[in-house]
């Protein structure tokens, strides 16, 4: 069913289309993290991370396993709040507003900052309900027509509409892995978030599904600020405009993606992107 001839099956290894014209670093960043420290109990997982993420662009977080990039990503929508032993210190701002301020409601924040997870995790409900769930709990839709419009719109933006429009009542868990992940993206964008966090969204997918998601990210970034954690340096090179390299809980270097991959400032970045460790 996934037959789209225009999709590249073999992803190019060379980082060619990195956003040279990136709009980044002009104007205010969409999200800005300053001196973020994070502890799991006694163990410190992030050390003084400073990172700016810009609107209408993709920021990739790369680094070896356990370097804290996923942890940092989860700070951006306060998903770490649900972990009892986790403690965050520092300043993270969304449009200049401190998201850890006491008056900020984490639930509302998560509507503005959507998240897509490593493993596709659709609800064990119908495809329609999966997408309609966000608008339902946030009350952005009232009538059936509104729901249908949002569901169709989100699924279309996620590139899934054509494949599932005839079986919206079937369970989302019955889809293939790639379709499930696009369903999760549709679910995340159904509430019109300003930022979309993606935690290794393609690590459980085959190359075809991966390519589809990457194309999708390219389209979505026109309206969104996307932050993606990835283990694949090719993917970072393909989809992102800016890349941040994490190592042992520290942000080593952040710059234009092309610069990180061709001429990094730090020796560790150089070693990592050339495959000497990690």
């Amino acid at each position: 069913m996934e037959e789209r001839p225009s999709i590249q099956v073999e992803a190019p290894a060379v980082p060619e289309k990195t956003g040279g014209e990136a709009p980044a670093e002009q104007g205010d960043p969409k999200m800005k993290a300053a001196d973020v420290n994070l502890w799991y109990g006694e163990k410190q997982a992030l050390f003084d991370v400073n990172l700016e993420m810009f609107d209408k662009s993709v920021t990739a977080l790369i680094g070896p396993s356990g370097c804290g990039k996923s942890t940092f990503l989860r700070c951006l929508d306060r998903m770490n709040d649900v972990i009892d032993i986790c403690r965050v210190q520092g300043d993270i701002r969304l449009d200049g507003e401190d998201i850890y301020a006491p008056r900020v409601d984490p639930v509302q924040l998560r509507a503005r900052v959507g998240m897509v997870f490593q493993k596709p995790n659709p609800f064990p409900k119908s495809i329609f309900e999966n997408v309609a769930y966000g608008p339902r709990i946030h009350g952005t839709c009232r009538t059936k027509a509104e729901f249908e419009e949002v569901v169709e719109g989100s699924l279309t933006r996620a590139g899934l509409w054509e494949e599932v429009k005839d079986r919206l009542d079937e369970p989302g868990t019955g889809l293939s892995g790639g379709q499930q992940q696009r369903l999760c993206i549709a679910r995340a964008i159904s509430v019109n978030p300003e930022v979309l966090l993606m935690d290794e969204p393609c690590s459980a997918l085959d190359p075809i599904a991966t390519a589809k998601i990457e194309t999708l990210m390219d389209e979505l970034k026109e309206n969104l600020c996307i932050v993606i954690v990835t283990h694949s340096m090719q993917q970072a090179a393909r989809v992102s405009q800016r890349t941040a390299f994490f190592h042992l809980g520290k942000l080593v270097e952040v710059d234009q993606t092309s610069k990180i991959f061709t001429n990094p400032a730090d020796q560790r970045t150089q070693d990592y992107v050339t495959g000497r460790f990690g």
Partner: protein
Amino acid sequence: MSDAQVLTPAGTIDWNSDKAQRRVRRRYAADRRLQAYGIIAIALAVGLLGVLVASLVRTGFPAFLQTKVDLPIHVDASKVDAEDPASGNYRGLIKAALNKAIPDVPKDQQRSVRKILTSHAAYILRDYVVDHPDSIGKTITLPIALSDPFDQLYKGVIPKHMDALNWVQEEWFERLQNRNVVVEHDGRTSLKLDVYVDPAAVEDGDYVDLARNSLQAYFPRVRDSSLFEMLAPDAPAAIEKAVAEDPAIVGKTVQIYFPVSEHYATLAAGEEPTILNPRFNEAQLAAYDVFVDKGMLRTPFNWELFFNADSRFPERAGLAGAITGSFYALLVCFMLSFPIGIAAAVYLEEFAPKNRLTDLIEVNINNLAAVPSVVFGLLGLAVFLGFFGLPRSAPLVGGMVLSLMTLPTIIITTRAALKAVPPSIREAALGVGASKHQVMLHHVLPLALPGILTGTIIGMAQALGETAPLLLIGMNAFIPSVENMGLLEPATSLPTQIFSWADSPERGFVSRTSAAILVLLGFLVIMNLVAITLRQMFQRKW
């Protein structure tokens, strides 16, 4: 380096050596042994279960049938007023019907013959006539239950005749036979005993003691007066007769023939002496035989077992009261323990901070599950009855006590079910901006529901079978009618009903106890099947 050397480099194991082979054989043997242990254990468990169920079915099966006689009854319009059928002389109608069905019963025996029918026969007739007023003036054929002894007799549980002599008595007689004391004399089986004809006894005419003493002399160690039943009633007369024939024997030891009693004579003839079962008399059995000969007796399915309440008469006793009581108690138990259990489990699992206090609560909940149920019964007695003054024997209190027992089970299984919901679902819901309670209500609880329901039903099944706490709060009342049952009225329950039936002396309650156990087991099986079905139905894959 050649290939062979690669496979077995110097200093490593030679897999073809005897030692290695032996090790392999030992490993296989150990595997088989372990399997055999498992199979033996399972076979033992299944076998014991089979024996239990088989014995229950064998004992309990007769209780599912009830012997009834199709008695033609003429509903005499002169005895039943069509305007007020409830107050007719139904006892008289039954009497007349019985006299007609079994003619020639002597007047003094009619009363005992009526005992063939259940004591409730007149009420059965009354209920029928009240329901069918058009039957007044006609002759109807109504199935009337037989009373318990005849029910048991027809089912072959108890015999018409019993052994007259027990094995000890038979052995006494055998000892006499071995000593050649048993002889035929004057056409009667007699004992040829040595008798010292005591002059004092002769003077008093006390020949009974003389005869007895002479028999006792053969059994110096037996101290059982039933020994003397061996002598026929006219045995002492044999001494008297001998003395009359020859007065010279007084003061001497002579041999005298004592005729043996009827049963021993039969035994000597090589037959098994029997007597009529003391539950019956001849007239009753004659009447019973008439019923049998005319083919008026049948054993239809005993619906009364399910629709009657308890009774002192086994043929009337049913489980309706117990089932109703158990139902009310379980209803209360469910209403209390299901919401409280789920609320407690959700809070402990999802919201409670992890600290000393919650740890303590958790440990105590797990401990509560292991507390013997009788302790909960005492608690209920002291707190619910003693302190709050709730009514004794009431299903409300029974349900409350049972819910104390069920709560830990429900909390523990609910927590396990909540834990089993994959974290990715929670993250997904949190990720689209669901609040904690929305995550809980919309996603986690529905997914955990099959597990929760399974746990709840298993907890309920446990509660259904629980006896001790109900006995302590007195929920084993004698309930002869289900009409007035309610949450606050005295009640009984299935397990306590089994308990009180097991204690009853009537023969019919033996099979009814087993039948009630089967009914209880049936309910348990049904509940477990429901649990399994629910789990299958709601189980989702992710």
